[in-house]
């Protein structure tokens, strides 16, 4: 039976400066961005020696809270107390205040040694007479701390690039820890998704280190959405939902299923995403269930695709299937759709899209072939940010709203009606056509792109809607509900006979949505994986998907 932090620290013989008193207190913290409230009177406390879990769906406010602790954002109201010192407005010098944050990208330089990476936080790269002595002292300190954390397999001289992936976050954690311990008092270490993308076994190494850091008397905030880990590691857990604290729980009083329910709201809400997805697709594609858009020609057939990091890629996607290309960062998968769409300079030996041969990959040709493109980086490529939702939605179909009778002027009424209907069909909230796109959440913005693309364009040769969909990171920076909706939408396109090619690094999503997964390595397709057949009007079963995901990770 695990005891509370205070008693555990006492048992370990660790002195804290204020036993029992919380190291981190967040009181009634609020923050709004333009018209949306990211955090609303959020309060939580973390004691010395405690690992405190922070969970919640995307858009719930976790990242905003972390950024406030980092001193990056200002607070609108409320206060943060670190070791009894009050901070309002902004935490000006987090390190001095006693807070360090290990962000998800870790900021490690692979070509430098462990000791040098850690030293980045201190020496500011000065190379003077004392450099050699300082670096020796740093190395020794490094080695000592690594040993104390049970990580003596990492040697300070090792290059970070040579370390196995799962161990690298530890280097970042050690760096943060040493910054914290540069000051005499204990402090707060915030870990932001430290185990993202890791297998369970690898993640255990990191959570172990997190526990040991807390055993040194610090307060650790563990932000994660891997609920099993959170439940086994954390003493107490705070659930954020839509910017407010939905619940505080201790380890002993909650299971991971209950946490999941708390994160998404009542069970009723979670179920509603399934029918919404189905309705959406039918309304959007104008296809009745069972009706097929079948043809005998191939949907997507590409040979010798070159461009960006791609050396040469061949792939084929049939009608009615969802195929995803993924892989390790830098292996080339990222460039597949960009190359096909002509966003990157590219060339291709053969290319058939939607049954039509395409001579040169470029957006206009693809549009004519009836291909819908959902680009990554929607703010720069997918959306017209300086315009309203309505203007975005009608952009590819302007000719349908203007006629010679009105002097070719665009009919405002017709546009508005079209836009409102489309926004409702896709569940874009709020369904105000005039709303500026920048005021929509990321999930709604992405749905807007889907809405525009699936409706087709003026330029299309045939009058039916797009049957080939290229989706590049379709759920990037999108909230959990919209993720599910987009996943279902892609499945519906396939079910209606369309052909979907997805590029994504989001292994969880990939596993739920794909019929086949292609994995790239060194600019070529290296492996192909498949899993159970996905039932209609649904995503793959979570248990099966998890197993599929780990197979995908293993192969990459």
């Amino acid at each position, binding site marked *: 039976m695990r005891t509370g932090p205070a008693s555990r620290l006492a048992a370990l013989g660790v002195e804290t400066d204020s036993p029992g008193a919380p190291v981190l207190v967040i009181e009634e913290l609020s923050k709004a961005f333009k018209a949306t*409230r990211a955090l609303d009177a959020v309060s939580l406390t973390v004691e010395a020696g405690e690992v405190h879990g922070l969970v919640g769906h*995307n858009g719930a406010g976790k990242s*905003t809270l972390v950024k406030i602790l980092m001193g990056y954002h200002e607070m609108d109201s409320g206060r943060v107390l670190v070791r009894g010192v009050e901070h309002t407005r902004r935490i000006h010098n987090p390190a001095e205040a006693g807070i360090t944050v290990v962000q998800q990208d870790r900021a490690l330089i692979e070509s430098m040694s462990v000791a040098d990476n850690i030293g980045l936080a201190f020496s500011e790269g000065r190379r003077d007479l004392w450099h050699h002595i300082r670096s020796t002292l740093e190395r020794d300190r490094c080695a000592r701390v690594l040993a104390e954390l049970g990580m003596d397999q990492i040697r300070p001289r090792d290059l970070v690039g040579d370390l196995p992936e799962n161990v690298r976050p530890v280097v970042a954690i050690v760096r943060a820890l040493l910054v914290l311990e540069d000051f005499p008092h204990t402090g707060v270490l915030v870990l932001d998704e430290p185990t993202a993308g890791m297998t369970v076994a690898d993640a255990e190494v990191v959570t172990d280190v997190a526990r040991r850091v807390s055993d040194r008397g610090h307060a650790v905030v563990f932000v994660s959405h891997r609920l099993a880990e959170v439940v086994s590691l954390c003493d107490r857990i705070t659930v954020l939902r839509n910017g407010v604290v939905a619940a505080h729980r201790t380890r002993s009083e909650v299971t991971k299923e209950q946490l999941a329910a708390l994160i998404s709201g009542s069970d009723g809400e979670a179920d509603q995403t399934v029918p919404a997805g189905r309705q959406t697709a039918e309304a959007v594609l104008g296809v009745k269930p069972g009706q097929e858009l079948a043809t005998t020609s191939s949907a997507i057939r590409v040979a010798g695709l070159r461009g960006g990091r791609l050396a040469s890629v061949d792939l084929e996607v049939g009608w009615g299937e969802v195929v995803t290309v993924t892989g390790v960062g830098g292996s080339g998968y990222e460039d597949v759709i960009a190359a096909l769409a002509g966003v990157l300079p590219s060339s291709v030996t053969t290319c058939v899209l939607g049954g039509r041969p395409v001579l040169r990959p470029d*957006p206009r040709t693809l549009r004519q072939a009836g291909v819908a493109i959902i680009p990554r980086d929607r703010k720069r490529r997918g959306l017209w940010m300086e315009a309203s939702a309505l203007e975005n939605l009608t952009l590819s179909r302007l000719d349908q709203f203007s006629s010679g009778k009105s*002097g070719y002027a665009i009919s405002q009424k017709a546009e508005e009606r079209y836009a409102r209907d489309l926004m409702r069909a896709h569940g874009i909230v709020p369904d105000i056509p005039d709303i500026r796109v920048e005021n929509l959440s990321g999930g709604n913005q992405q749905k807007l792109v889907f809405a525009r693309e699936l409706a087709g364009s003026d330029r299309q040769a045939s009058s039916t809607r797009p049957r080939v969909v290229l989706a590049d990171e379709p759920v990037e*920076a999108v909230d959990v509900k919209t993720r599910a909706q987009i996943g279902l939408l892609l499945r519906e396109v396939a079910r209606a006979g369309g052909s979907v090619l997805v590029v994504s*690094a989001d292994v969880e999503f990939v596993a739920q949505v794909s019929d086949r997964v292609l994995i790239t390595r060194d600019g070529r397709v290296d492996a192909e994986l498949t899993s159970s057949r996905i039932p209609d009007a649904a995503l793959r079963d979570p248990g099966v998907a998890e197993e599929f995901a780990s197979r995908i990770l293993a192969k*990459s």
Partner: protein
Amino acid sequence: MPMTATQSPSVADEPTRPRRRGIQERVVNDISHYALVIVGAVIVLIFALTTSQFWTTSNFSNIATADSVTLLLAVAVTVPLRAGGFDLSVSGTLIDAAILADILTTRYSMAWPLALLVTVAAAALVGLVNGILIVDLGLDGFIVTLGMSTLLTGIGFGLSGDTVLFNVPSAVLNVNRTDVFGSLPVACVYGWVIACVVGWIIGKTPVGRRLAVVGTSRETAALIGLRVSRLRRTTYVCSAVLAAAAGFILLGVIGSVDPGSGSAYLLAPFSAAFLGTTIGRSGRFNVLGTVIALYVLSITEQGLVLVGAPSWIADVFNGAALVGTLIFAKVWRGRLSRRPVR
């Protein structure tokens, strides 16, 4: 080996609950879109009450006449601006068109409609060259058109033999100077009609909407499949053609053309175009805004002159209006950007 994670808080996007706008906010919002018109009306009122010569037909028709050339030039630069480009060569095209039209109608005794056609065609060619250099070769539009302007001015001096041309055929004068509505030269009406047509196309038709995307979100425009290059090139041809029309009007209304006078016509059109973006909800370049801004600026200048301000006040005004608009756009519109757009 592990890949980039699934939804991490540092990547995921921040939040979802929109706030309701109060009545007060909405009223302030709507007023600010037409602030320039209100300011203009107030200025007119002030001058009308303080100076007796202000509120007279002759004063207003003087202003309209004086602005007949600048109006068309302002409309001319609005077109490329909407698509994100600067055409600084319009003043060069203006003068060269006037000179060419004069030479064709006097030295070669061409009928004025034909001379106009030839001039416009020549301008279109200039515009095309601009377009190719800027869009296809990817050169900086600002520098290219600046250079082109200097080049054209040089050509103007060459064509005119380095002197002011005084000899304008009466046909040309008549077609421009005939009075309508009492004391207003018909050339003003030409300008208004052209402004209306261009304004309609830019503001109300699909082409105009597409120009706006190209101007503010070029990558999205390309990915959607718009002919971005063609649209941009066309805007430069349009600005040149409109500048040529303005040149013809210049010849007729002023009755002479000074090859060195081009630069005097450069700033006011741009001030008007930029100031004009404050009208309407979208902050985009538009013809109606440009026209209103032009008249507000020149009415104010004229009013100031009537109350005894020195003549250099015009430059101060135009410059201040240009810079002021940019500040306004950054500060006020930045706060307003949460409002809906239409």
